[in-house]
């Protein structure tokens, strides 16, 4: 993504449309926002940059009324904004495209757009009018949508368009976008940026939250950097660069992970022509997928979420079984798929969602650590659990993996995201696994935790383990992976080797180019 100067960089700033003054917010002992003040001008794209946990989303949630600030004031077009009310924010022209889309899947596009725009006590909804207004906006901003389509049937890019139209339908003058590109292909991202330019040319002001430096450089006129709840810097984008922003974001120079070339070991996991169908709809979730993972290498799996990565992860985790094709572990074909069996084989699985799949939040740390191995020695004998050995194991893991907690009996859901991930790593890596499935391992983690996760994965690789790394973050994949495959509509591409990968090519593959209709491609 090369830095294009945005058209608004050539114009001077317009009037101040939004002013935050001294916004402070605490959650218990955590100071999420510390006296933050900023201005937003008409016609500009302001980037809010910071790593995960810096306080960007909290600040925008306060602006939109989901939270109430402990101190500070917000004024929109000169008028004070009543706190804690999305209704007030909407009325004063603020629209927000949330990181996790706020759309009702079972309803239509028109339903979602019109919700809340009519007085609740009106006796009949004026849908014909609404349909007309939506069509006009759609045409005017070049955001094509089908009003009667069910949201569940739309692609991610289409859903985002609906979210933007929702805001425009309500005559938003200020638009907040929270990490909008996390789920888009590079081409869709470019299309989004073009849309933002159009909006800004019409006089809207945009706040763009991101932790991705190249995007910030590409699309914004100004950047505000948040770190640990404080506003640490404000720059005009054209006068700064990625390195300065990165240092401001993190506060210290970031070491790049060093990936030593490793001799490739024997094949540890092999998928040949695997097909998996959705039991309810019959849709093909995985089609003729073939892939070989060797010891001592990291294979990265790129692709927009929803193209079969979850199914692949489920397969390797033992949660689903293939309808067609073969799966072999350490050279032997496996016929029975169950999470317990995968654990027996020594496969470490770092799930996509810590809270839902990875940990039982209401159990203690030590109870979570034995969730896969409680049935055997040393943790239990003849059906009785040996809590002492469990405690010892827990203490070891907590020390080894630097899990910040009040002890092995602490309740797990009270841990921070980074510490939860470290706990999961400790649990999965305890038995020196030969195959590791890491599914979005750095999602939602701050830079320190991300670096830790990468370090541990590289250590495992150096010890001879084969790692399957599924990630939405192309930077992460390119930094760590020896080979990269792309998934699209359940198919797996030919692998690309480190050093021979171009982002543009990856982007095209993520959008579906290069996938033959008949039969997948086979791994080298």
């Amino acid at each position, binding site marked *: 993504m090369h830095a294009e100067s945005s058209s608004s960089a050539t114009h001077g700033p317009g009037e101040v449309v939004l002013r935050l003054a001294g916004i402070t917010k605490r959650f218990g002992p955590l100071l999420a926002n510390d006296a933050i003040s900023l201005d937003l001008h008409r016609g500009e794209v302001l980037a809010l940059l910071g790593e995960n946990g810096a306080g960007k989303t909290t600040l925008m949630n306060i602006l939109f009324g989901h939270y109430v600030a402990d101190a500070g004031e917000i004024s929109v077009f000169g008028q004070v904004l009543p706190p804690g009310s999305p209704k007030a924010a909407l009325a004063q022209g603020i629209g927000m495209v949330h990181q996790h889309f706020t759309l009702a899947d079972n309803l239509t596009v028109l339903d979602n757009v019109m919700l809340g725009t009519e007085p609740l006590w009106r006796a009949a909804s004026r849908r014909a009018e609404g349909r007309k207004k939506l069509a006009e906006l759609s045409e005017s901003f070049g955001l094509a949508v089908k009003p009667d389509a069910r949201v569940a049937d739309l692609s991610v890019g289409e859903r985002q368009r609906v979210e933007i139209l929702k805001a425009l339908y309500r005559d938003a003058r200020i638009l907040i976008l929270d990490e909008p590109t996390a789920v888009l292909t590079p081409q869709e991202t470019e299309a989004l940026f073009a849309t933002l330019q159009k909006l800004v040319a019409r006089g809207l002001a945009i706040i763009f939250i991101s932790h991705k430096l190249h995007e910030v450089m590409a699309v914004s006129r100004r950047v505000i950097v948040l770190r640990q709840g404080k506003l640490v810097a404000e720059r005009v984008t054209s006068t700064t660069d990625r390195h300065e922003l990165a240092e401001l974001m993190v506060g210290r120079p970031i070491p790049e992970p060093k990936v030593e070339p490793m001799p490739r070991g024997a094949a540890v996991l092999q998928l040949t022509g695997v097909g998996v169908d959705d039991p309810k709809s019959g849709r093909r979730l995985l089609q003729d997928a073939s892939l070989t993972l060797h010891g001592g290498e990291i294979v990265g799996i790129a692709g927009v979420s929803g193209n079969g990565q979850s199914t692949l992860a489920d397969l390797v985790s033992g949660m689903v079984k293939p309808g067609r094709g073969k799966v072999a572990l350490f050279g032997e074909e496996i016929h029975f798929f169950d*999470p317990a069996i995968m*654990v027996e084989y020594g496969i470490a699985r770092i799930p996509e969602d810590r809270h839902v799949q990875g940990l*039982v939040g209401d159990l203690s740390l030590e109870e979570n650590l034995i969730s896969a191995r*409680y049935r055997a020695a040393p943790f239990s004998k003849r059906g009785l659990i040996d809590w002492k050995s469990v405690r010892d194991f827990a203490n070891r893991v907590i020390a080894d993996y630097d899990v910040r907690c009040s002890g092995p009996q602490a309740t797990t859901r009270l841990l921070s995201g980074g510490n939860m991930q470290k706990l999961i790593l400790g649990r999965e890596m305890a038995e020196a696994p030969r195959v590791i499935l890491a599914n979005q391992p750095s999602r939602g983690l701050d830079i320190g935790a991300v670096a830790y996760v990468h370090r541990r994965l590289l250590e495992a690789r150096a010890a001879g383990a084969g790692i399957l790394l599924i990630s939405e973050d192309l930077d992460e994949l390119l930094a760590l992976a020896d080979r990269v495959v792309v998934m699209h509509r359940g198919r797996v591409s030919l692998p690309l080797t480190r050093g021979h990968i171009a982002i543009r090519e990856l982007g095209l593959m993520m959008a579906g180019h290069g996938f033959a209709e008949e039969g997948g491609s086979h791994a080298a």
Partner: protein
Amino acid sequence: MRLEPRTETGIGLRLAAPIAAVAASFLVAALLVLIGGASPFAVFAAVIKGALGSQFAFLETLTRATPLIFTGLAAAIAFRARLWNIGGEAQLYAGAILTVMLGTGALALPAPVLFPLILAASALAGALLLLGPTILKTRFGVDEVVTTLLLNFIMVLVVSMLLDGPLKDPMGLGWPQSKKVIAEAIWPKLVQGKRLHLGFLIAILAALAVWFVNARTTFGYEMRAVGFNPRAARFAGIPVNWVMAKTALLSGGLAALAGVSEVAGLKGNLTLDLSPGFGYTGIVVAMLAALHPVGVIAAAIFVAAMFVGADAMSRTVGVPNYIANVMVATALLTMVAAMLFTRFRLRRG
């Protein structure tokens, strides 16, 4: 206002919940008694006297608590695994039916054989009765609350049918009742001349056993994990459906034991009014005990005291004895709300 998770919950706070529940139920009762035109003090005094005021009353309370311990345990075990077993009534009757089928003379066996046989068969009947709805839940996603509830109504009709037919006591002058349980199957009384019987001891033992299973065994661990987060449990390789099935068997079996206890220990035969809602009351007992097996004993005695006391009070002071039901329902709702505040605190904004 919003709810913020607490970082730790002291034992004081945890005890505050059931105390708040009991206090709330007394308050509501006092209000209702005033509306009814009687004096709350007179009513409460009569209730306490009727429940604990003499050896007779106290033993009666313990007798009344016995089936509640069983159904309370059944509910507690199931609820811990998020299996909403509201079918305690049906399972209790299943146990009672088996007791009467096997224990009224059909089998001529000595007591040491007949006693455990009846226990096992009855528990199995209750267990299987709950297994059905549980499988419907795990396989087909059918909500077990409604299925177990509907089974209660069905079972009452089955009992009625059996008492009109094959189980009818030929010497019963036409009343729908079963034959009497034979001497070898009767559960002995614990105190001469009073109604307290072996069932009470067995119930206590059952509670201790459940406590042990929960705290020390792999099965107890599995039930906890599955109850809190079945998706994570499945991911970890815990056989969720199998755990649910075992939970159902244990829960249903315990509820059935309430039926055995009432028939073989207290009444001596099966009639249509064997259970004045022990299954439902067991749910309240379980919640008041915060699903803790040993707490169930205390909660069951408390609830039994309410009912026994209210019966006695209603004969003397005249306030309808349904006041006990109101108190018990109020205690349930208050307890549920209070438990929330042991986990969360209220914060502004």
